[in-house]
């Protein structure tokens, strides 16, 4: 999944990025409010981690601007402001979750996963279809209860399809959600990843809609 981390402290932003990449996500960083607004309006992020105290434009006004423009990205506010009024104002501005600093990284990544599941309508963190199962918390895949080794990009493609069940996803869309802003995106490699996944997990898991894209059917 593709995640935007909007945090003005670059050390902390790098820590968060590293933790999310280790879970298979593609991560973009932004350090000031106006740039964050632009990225949110133009890039298809799956979730945003948003600091309130951003330079040039604060996080709450960024969020309000997105919501006015009907940008529905799930947003987790990560901030040092812990008063009740700040928490409620953050939710009222359109945030989906609110975490205060200092925080535990495992808790942050867990809440990001919860937001992604909620967005996809997945009530269960464990996706099961026939003999195949995928744990969205750990990125572990199993067939007949036997663990299957997947690369980071394969996990990213599989995770995106599982989080958008029943919907046809084009190669372009897949590449936009598994690569970060600075990565070289080549939608042809998507076909390679799909082929590898079918080989490892079974050909029936991912269906091809000719000329349109790929889909994992709803269970």
């Amino acid at each position, binding site marked *: 999944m593709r995640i935007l981390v909007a945090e003005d*402290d670059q050390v902390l932003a790098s820590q968060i990025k590293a933790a999310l990449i280790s879970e298979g996500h593609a991560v973009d960083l932004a350090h000031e409010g106006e740039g964050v607004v632009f990225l949110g309006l133009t890039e298809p992020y799956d979730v945003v981690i948003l600091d309130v*105290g951003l330079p040039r434009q604060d996080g709450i006004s960024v969020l309000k601007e997105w919501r006015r423009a009907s940008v529905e990205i799930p947003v987790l506010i990560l901030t*040092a*402001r812990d*008063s009740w*009024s700040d928490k409620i104002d953050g939710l*009222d501005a359109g945030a989906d979750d609110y975490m205060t600093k*200092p*925080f*535990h990284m495992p808790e942050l990544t867990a809440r990001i996963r919860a937001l992604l599941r909620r967005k996809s309508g997945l009530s269960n963190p464990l996706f099961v279809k026939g003999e195949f199962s995928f744990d969205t918390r750990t990125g572990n895949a199993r067939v007949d209860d036997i663990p299957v080794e997947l690369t980071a990009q394969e996990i990213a493609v599989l995770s995106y399809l599982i989080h958008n069940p029943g919907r046809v996803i084009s190669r372009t869309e897949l590449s936009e959600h598994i690569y970060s802003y600075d990565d070289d995106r080549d939608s042809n490699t998507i076909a390679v990843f799909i082929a590898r996944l079918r080989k490892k997990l079974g050909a029936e898991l991912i269906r091809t809609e000719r000329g349109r894209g790929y889909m994992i059917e709803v269970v």
Partner: protein
Amino acid sequence: MWSLRSRVILGSVIWAVVIMLVGIFALFALMDNFALKHFDRTLMNRHLQLVSALGNSNGSSDQLIRLISDPAYRHPNSRVYWQASNAKGVLLGSASMFDVKFPVPDDAVFEPEFWTATHFGGPVRGIHQSIILKDKSEWFVQVAESLNTFETDRFQLRKSMVAAFAVMGFLGVIGAVLQTSVSMRPIARLTAEISQRKKEGQRLEVNRYPQEVAPLVADLNELLERNHQIVEMGRRKAADLAHALKTPSSIIRNDLIEFEKAGVDISGTKDALGRIDEQINRSLARIRADNSDALSLEPISLGKSVDRIVRYLTTIPDYEHKQLFSMITSDVQVVVGKQDLEEIIGNLTENALKWCNSRVEISATQSGKNVLVIVQDDGPGIPKEDYERVLTAGERLDMAVPGSGLGLSITSDLLQSYAQSLELSRSSDLGGLKASFTLPIAGR
């Protein structure tokens, strides 16, 4: 301290009394002097008349009596008298003298001389003079009149004057009191509007006050606005400080996790960082409580603030299996800072959710000028002997339940800044803890 009104009234009364006394005594002296001079002039005229009659009488008493035309001398109780005497022992007098004789000095008195003595049972004033007639005879002529009537008239006049002065003094005091009341009206209005402003959060209108009071009103508005700015600045600084301290703390904490994953023993460092975080939270909470908006005093809706808190808490997964109810149906406006109210209700409600079994209720009851807010739960409650302890910052009764131990103490401190207090007791409805406090209702 005496009020301005009391000072003016007392000053008016004292001044009125002083003026009255000075005026009365001055007038009395003036009047006495005038009246006595008039009395003496009358005596002199009578004396002159007697001398003239004596000169024309050739020493005959009958002739003299006929020539003295004033009939008053003939009446026994007329209180006007005359007496004439010579060296040969002749003594003539008016019928009103009876058997009284005025004393005659041994030596002649050729200049008219007034005298006052007691005769006929009362004060008598007279004039006497030695005169030499055409026939070279020397007579000592005296004319006198009783002072009783004079003194009676003088007493009546004084009585009337005192009454008149008393009425004038009383009217003067009344006038001063009325004038003071009219002059004090702008100050009374200022007092009432300050009190009203406290309830409705509005600025005072400077142009409704006279020029003597208007600068004070303008300064008061400025002072209240400045206080509000100071509070806002304090809060912004606290927020900036929080941002500056908590972000590096997060970085250190996350690095420690990586070290721990690599097998490094970080327990000591983790504890130290935990103590730093706790101190930061405590200090920031103290700054927030010290910068309460107790003077902002814009009325806010209690119901809406409670709804905001309930809406937020129901989104937290930790509490999704618990029931949180707001029983507030009427929209009561209270006089308290919005952030402070949400801090108070949020802390109490979250504390209740942490400790309850399954149910938390928030209610509000209006009573006169105040509203009583109650947050109660169905948890184990707190022993009475621990009430004071839980209101101390950092004190926690159960370390197993997550929390900083600051919520109740911050709530208590915030309420104290509004001259209110947090009361803890056992809930008779739900069996757990009942936390209650009162707030003033706006506009009452």
